[in-house]
C-alpha cells in the first residue's frame, strides 16, 4: 500500500492497522524520515516538497511491488508527504512486515534507498541566504546501486 499526502501520519496507528489480526507476521520494521534543522552548515527554516502527481503514485507502487517480489513480505506500507514542512516534521514512513526480521529489515532499507533515487520528489529548503533546491546525492545513488549488484 502506498499513500502520497499533505497531512501528517501516526506511526503507531499505521503499524497497528497493518499488523492487527495477521498471525503470519513475526517482525515489523519501520523507517521514519524527518526534516533536519540544518544542512551544509546552514539553518533550515522549512522545506517544501514538490512532486509529480500521478507519476509519484505509479513509481511508489512499482517500488513496493519490487520489494514484495524480492522478499517474502506479509505487508508493506509507504507514506510520503508533500508541501511545506518544518524541522522535526515527518516526511516519509516505510513499514515492512514479514514472518522473520531479516526480510523486514532488508526490504525496508531497499524501499527507502529506492524511493530516494526514483520517486519524483524535489526539496526546496528555506535558508537564511534564501531558498535553495536540494541536490541529489551521489551517496544515495550508490546506496541504490548495491541492490542492483545482488
Amino acid at each position, binding site marked *: 500500500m502506498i499513500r502520497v499526502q499533505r497531512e501528517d501520519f501516526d506511526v503507531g496507528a499505521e503499524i497497528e492497522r497493518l499488523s492487527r489480526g495477521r498471525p503470519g507476521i513475526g517482525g515489523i520494521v519501520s523507517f521514519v*524520515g524527518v526534516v533536519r534543522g540544518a544542512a551544509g552548515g546552514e539553518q533550515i527554516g522549512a522545506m517544501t*516538497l*514538490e*512532486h*509529480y502527481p*500521478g*507519476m509519484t503514485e*505509479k513509481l511508489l507502487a512499482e517500488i513496493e511491488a519490487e520489494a514484495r517480489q524480492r522478499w517474502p513480505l506479509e505487508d508493506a506500507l509507504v507514506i*510520503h508527504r508533500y508541501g511545506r514542512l518544518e524541522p522535526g516534521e515527518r*516526511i*516519509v514512513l516505510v513499514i515492512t512486515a514479514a514472518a522473520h526480521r531479516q526480510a523486514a529489515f532488508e526490504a525496508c532499507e531497499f524501499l*527507502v534507498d529506492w*524511493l*530516494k*533515487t*526514483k*520517486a*519524483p*520528489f*524535489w*526539496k*526546496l529548503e528555506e535558508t537564511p541566504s534564501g531558498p535553495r*533546491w*536540494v*541536490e*541529489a*546525492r551521489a551517496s*544515495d545513488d550508490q546506496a541504490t546501486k548495491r541492490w542492483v549488484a545482488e
Partner: protein
Amino acid sequence: MKLLYFAWLRAKIGIAEETVELPAGVATVGALLDWLKRRGPGFADALRDASVVRVAVNQTYVPWDHPIKAGDEVALFPPVTGG
C-alpha cells in the same frame, strides 16, 4: 503534446506546464530538448546541462533516444530528492 516542468527547471522556464504541437522533425526526447533550448533564454538556461535533466514520457523514465509522438505527456525535471 503536454509538457510538464518541475523544481528548478520550472522556476527557470517560468511555467509549470504547457501544451504544444509536436514540431516537425522532432521524433525523440533528445531532439525535443534541442528544440526546447531554442525557445528562449529561460529554456536555454534550464536545459544547458543535460546531465542534470531527467525525462519521463507518460510517467515512465526514458533515455534520450526514446521516441515521442503527439499526445504524449513529457515531463522534464532535475534528479529527484525524495525520502
